[in-house]
């Protein structure tokens, strides 16, 4: 039988052999062995061997020359099956895991790693399969971050205050949807959107004006530079005092943060068109607006989208931080600062998860729009 060696399954097998030298996976099982008459629920009673067998079978089968997709499927079943049994088995015995628990966890992680590397080396012909793969590999990565987090936190019994397991965060997220929705509505749909649109719009308008009138460029750029260097932590309380507790003050902070990146990028973008292209417009006796609309703005689009993407993350940070300095009793920043004080760390994590989700969606939407608008740019069309 011909083999195909990869280091991950080999290492997983080594870890399993190492784990077999230890008598028990948890302290509870040790107690039960020491006192066989007591009727205690023993963690991993029966599943311990099953986990080892599943992982060993997956690792060995993956070394055989199988079709790539079959190998990936076997590895996924073995690693996720083992992980599921490890995580569910530790319930009720949190903090009592011993070395074999972590060794088996590591073994299943290595098998999943191998699966991801097999999958990312596949080059399927059909476009839909390629799309599926492009989503599957990062999903696998994300899933394993959560699995390792869950298993380590619960196995080692990390205090809830320090780091809650993702399952608890998920439960908290699901059970407080109305609160989270109200916070998103306040922070994203009021502060961030208003501030982002106004900040980017003003930055863009100022850039066009500064490009047209030299004195503005010379006057505005250094001041804009200075404003962007102001620490947000210092600006936010001043603006909150000035404009009140509601979303307007947060939008103002977002404007301050997003204005300058848009200004600088747009000014750079407006001078991105080549000499020849501009001479061409001159030979057509094209006026200022025609040259702006037909040449300089399209050529500036890659720069403008850069600014839009940078600003999408800045806007979220700005609005959340500004809410630390005063807000009506709603908003993501308000919730984070108060729930930290009340030791509800899972709620803080839930807010973080929501912010990450919203930020990713926002950024992803922008990236899609960028592809549609700057399809012609070498960085998008590839060469």
């Amino acid at each position: 039988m011909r083999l195909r060696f990869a280091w991950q399954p080999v290492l997983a097998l080594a870890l399993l052999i190492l784990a077999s030298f230890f008598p028990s996976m948890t302290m509870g099982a040790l107690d039960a062995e020491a006192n066989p008459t007591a009727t205690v629920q023993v963690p991993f009673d029966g599943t311990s061997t099953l986990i080892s067998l599943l992982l060993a079978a997956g690792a060995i089968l993956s070394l055989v020359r199988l079709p790539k997709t079959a190998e990936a499927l076997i590895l996924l079943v073995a690693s996720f099956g083992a992980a599921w049994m490890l995580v569910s088995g530790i319930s009720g015995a949190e903090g009592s895991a011993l070395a074999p628990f972590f060794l088996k966890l590591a073994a299943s992680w290595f098998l999943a790693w191998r699966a991801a590397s097999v999958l990312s080396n596949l080059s399927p012909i059909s476009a839909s399969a390629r799309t599926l793969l492009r989503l599957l590999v990062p999903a696998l990565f994300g899933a394993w971050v959560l699995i390792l987090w869950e298993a380590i936190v619960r196995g080692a019994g990390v205090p809830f205050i320090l780091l809650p397991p993702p399952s608890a965060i998920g439960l908290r997220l699901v059970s407080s949807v109305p609160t989270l929705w109200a916070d998103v509505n306040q922070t994203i749909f009021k502060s961030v959107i208003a501030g982002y649109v106004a900040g980017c719009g003003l930055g863009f308008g100022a850039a066009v004006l500064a490009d047209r009138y030299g004195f503005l460029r010379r006057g505005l750029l250094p001041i804009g530079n200075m404003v962007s260097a102001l620490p947000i932590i210092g600006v936010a309380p001043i603006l909150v005092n000035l404009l009140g507790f509601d979303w307007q003050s947060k939008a103002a902070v977002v404007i301050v943060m997003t204005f300058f990146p848009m200004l600088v990028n747009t000014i750079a973008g407006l001078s991105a068109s080549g000499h020849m292209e501009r001479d061409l417009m001159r030979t057509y006796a094209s006026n200022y607006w025609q040259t702006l609309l037909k040449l300089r703005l399209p050529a500036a689009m890659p720069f403008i989208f850069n600014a839009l993407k940078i600003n999408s993350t800045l806007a979220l940070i700005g609005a959340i931080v500004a809410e630390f300095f005063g807000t009506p009793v709603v908003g993501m920043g308000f919730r984070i600062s108060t729930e930290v004080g009340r030791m509800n760390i899972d709620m803080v994590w839930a807010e973080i998860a929501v912010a990450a989700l919203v930020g990713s969606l926002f950024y992803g939407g922008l990236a899609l729009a960028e592809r549609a608008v700057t399809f012609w740019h070498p960085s998008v069309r590839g060469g």
Partner: protein
Amino acid sequence: MDRSLKLLSFSAAMNVIASPLKPADVVPRPSGASVVEARGLGLTFKTNDGPVQALTDVNLSIGKGEFVSFIGPSGCGKTTFLRVIADLERPTAGTIHVNGMTPEQAREARAYGYVFQAAALYPWRTIEHNVALPLEIMGIGKAEREERIKRTLALVNLSGFEKKFPWQLSGGMQQRASIARALAFDADLLLMDEPFGALDEIVRDHLNEQLLQLWARTNKTICFVTHSIPEAVYLSTRIVVMSPRPGRVTDVIESTLPHERPLDIRETPEFLAIAHRVREGLRAGHSYD
């Protein structure tokens, strides 16, 4: 030939230039007012290393329907002269008229089409929309735009590539599209600045042939900058030889080749004689310092 023989006007040229190559009646010359008329033209660039004389005392008259090539080593001012005609540079001495107007007025009147060294097509526009660009700027209606795009793309043999983006075409096709763009608004004067300089020789031969056909069909006046002697001789009715430091005209050669020019005309003794004279002119004007 020395500088005193520079042409003062088109009709004078017919008489002044008396060379063994030149039976005056071989090339049928169109009549009419000159399209470009330069007198004592000079242009000095101010640079950090002191003034650079890009052009000195250029006297030249280009008649309607001529195909004039400008040839010379780099720095001889051939491109600068073309840019002065196009009002992309302002002369610092002398006068120049284009269609009887100043270059600025001529540019405002969209008197010429300019083809650059590179195609300079806008990558976000398809080929047809690139050709439409000058038409949009000049405010030409949609129906007529479409008709002209169709016609000019056919003229440069690019029919069927309307919906392609420039980066999907070869360099030669891109340059043909840029010629179509310059032709689209029907200016009588075509200024071409080494348009085929970046292309390989096979493509270049092909485009030269097509350019001559196009010139014959459209009866435009063409000013063509090149640094290739065969290209200049093959294309032109007149060859202006220039030399650098300071940029000046050293010779003006009338071509005796017939209007109808297949590519193998380049092996005829007549062709080689003209090419020899161009080479001599370039050598004489070039100071090897």
